[in-house]
């Protein structure tokens, strides 16, 4: 039992089962596999090429982020959250900072809120770009990857100029921002938006009407709205199933209520709809950033925050709409400088649960497409 190799129902070393076995075949995918987006291990039960069921084995990237949080001060824990969903680090920071701010009953000043929205939406763009590139690569189209990475670079340059880091940005501080925006920030963001708008069309040109792409994604990995809700699936996957629910609208945080944008939804809840929803979300993000840059107010960037953060005793749950879904932080304070308990509700972790439902009855090659379309980041799943 303690032997980790005996975890799987199949002993892979004994070649007693063959491909012609009348019953079912169990094969192992990962943890080292190019299409599992990290160290995800999937044990597939197959009937020929048809998937009868699957089991995910996760935890290969477990670093005990929640435990670390209990042993760091509130400010010290802030950079750690960037390492969970490392492709959307800004969103993670936003959720954490807002949760602690709520616990402290303070609110970031308007200018900080605006900059937060700009950076978070830019980060949503990078996350979706990375998703699009790798998802298309999984399905066999190699070119979109390079297009998305070319444009992602421009956003990362803005991040780098703003806070010195490209990926794990640590852009926000509890109570606002650490840095004032650099001179020319607005201009550069606007330039980027003007540059990026036609690029979304370019991505769509490559894929949206490509026949092979349609064949590979239409009707694949279908999940109904009811299943989504029952399984707690959120984010673009939920919206592609036709549920018009976005935390930015439903329970607005930061100052999203000031911006005008739409929630794109799909109809069928298949891989193609999820693709369409995410592409539309990129366009909406561009809209939000444009409004935020135009209306960027002057003023302080930091609220009055005590030097040592000691929230009063109590607990708070705060969630935001990360690129992958609902990212929640449940923080229990005991009145000291360190959180008594930090719980992260990771969207990827909960969304990954739906993989089994989505893959049943599909073929093996579709499992790869579905893993890609779920847009999981193993750093966040395993924490």
């Amino acid at each position: 039992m303690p032997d980790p190799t005996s975890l799987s129902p199949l002993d892979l070393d004994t070649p007693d089962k063959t491909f012609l076995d009348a019953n079912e075949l169990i094969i192992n995918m990962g943890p080292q596999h190019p299409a599992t987006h990290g160290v995800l291990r999937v044990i597939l039960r197959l009937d020929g090429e048809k998937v009868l069921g699957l089991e995910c084995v996760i935890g290969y990237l477990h670093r005990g982020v929640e435990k670390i949080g209990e042993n760091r001060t509130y400010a010290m824990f802030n950079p750690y959250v960037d390492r969970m969903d490392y492709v959307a680090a800004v969103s993670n920071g936003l959720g954490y900072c807002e949760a602690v701010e709520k616990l402290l009953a303070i609110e970031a000043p308007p200018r900080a809120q605006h900059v937060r929205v700009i950076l978070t939406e830019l980060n949503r763009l990078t996350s979706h770009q990375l998703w699009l590139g790798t998802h298309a690569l999984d399905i066999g189209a190699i070119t979109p990857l390079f297009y998305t990475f070319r444009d992602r670079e421009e956003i990362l340059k803005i991040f780098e100029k703003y806070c010195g880091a490209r990926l794990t940005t640590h852009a926000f501080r509890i109570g606002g921002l650490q840095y004032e925006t650099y001179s020319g920030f607005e201009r550069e963001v606007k330039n980027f938006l003007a540059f990026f708008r036609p690029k979304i069309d370019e991505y769509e040109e490559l894929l949206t009407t490509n026949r092979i792409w349609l064949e590979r994604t239409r009707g694949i990995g279908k999940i109904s709205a009811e299943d989504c809700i029952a399984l707690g699936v959120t984010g673009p996957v939920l919206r592609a199933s036709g549920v018009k629910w976005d935390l930015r609208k439903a329970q607005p945080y930061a100052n999203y209520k000031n911006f005008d944008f739409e929630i794109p939804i799909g109809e069928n809840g298949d891989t193609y709809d999820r693709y369409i929803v995410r592409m539309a979300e990129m366009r909406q993000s561009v809209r939000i950033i444009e409004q935020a840059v135009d209306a960027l107010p002057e003023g302080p960037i930091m609220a009055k925050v005590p030097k040592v953060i000691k929230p009063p005793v109590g607990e708070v749950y705060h969630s935001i709409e990360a690129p992958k879904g609902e990212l929640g932080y449940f923080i229990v304070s005991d009145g000291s400088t360190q959180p008594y308990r930090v719980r992260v509700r990771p969207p990827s972790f909960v969304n990954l649960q739906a993989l089994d439902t989505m893959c049943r009855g599909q073929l093996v090659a579709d499992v790869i497409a579905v893993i890609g379309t779920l847009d999981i980041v193993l750093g966040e799943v395993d924490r």
Partner: protein
Amino acid sequence: MTPVATPFFFYLLAATMLIGGILVITCKNAVHSALALIVTLLAQANIYLMLYAPFVAGVQIILYAGGIMVLFLFVIMLVNIDRAMKERQFNSQWWVGIIAATALGGLFIAVYTKGKSIFPERIPSIAEGENTQRVATLLYGQYMFAFEIASLLLLVAIIGAVVMAKKRI
């Protein structure tokens, strides 16, 4: 193309074929047997070329080496041969088989030594360039009926194979 150095190539190909044939029936591993058989078949295609039968040689390569043998290899890989390799390779009546084969061989030798004289010494040569056309004329003329029956046979074989191999019909 007139075949050149006929005896040399004949003995080379004959040796290849016979070694291949021996390997087919002695190899433990069915995959090795299949590969030996492929070598035999390819050598035989070359012998057909020497016998001025280029069309049959082409058919031999496409159908036998490229088609039937791939099917064989496919099936060998699908079924588990590990167990078969560990088992005894020859059945308990192997000596009966050898004796029967030897008897048959004796019969052949007897027939050939006796009937050697009836084979004509001079072999009439036929225009190789028109081989394909003439085969086609015969196949679709005189042997039309047989051709149709053969196609029917193939159809039956296809359906039969599908029915046999399918898990659920």
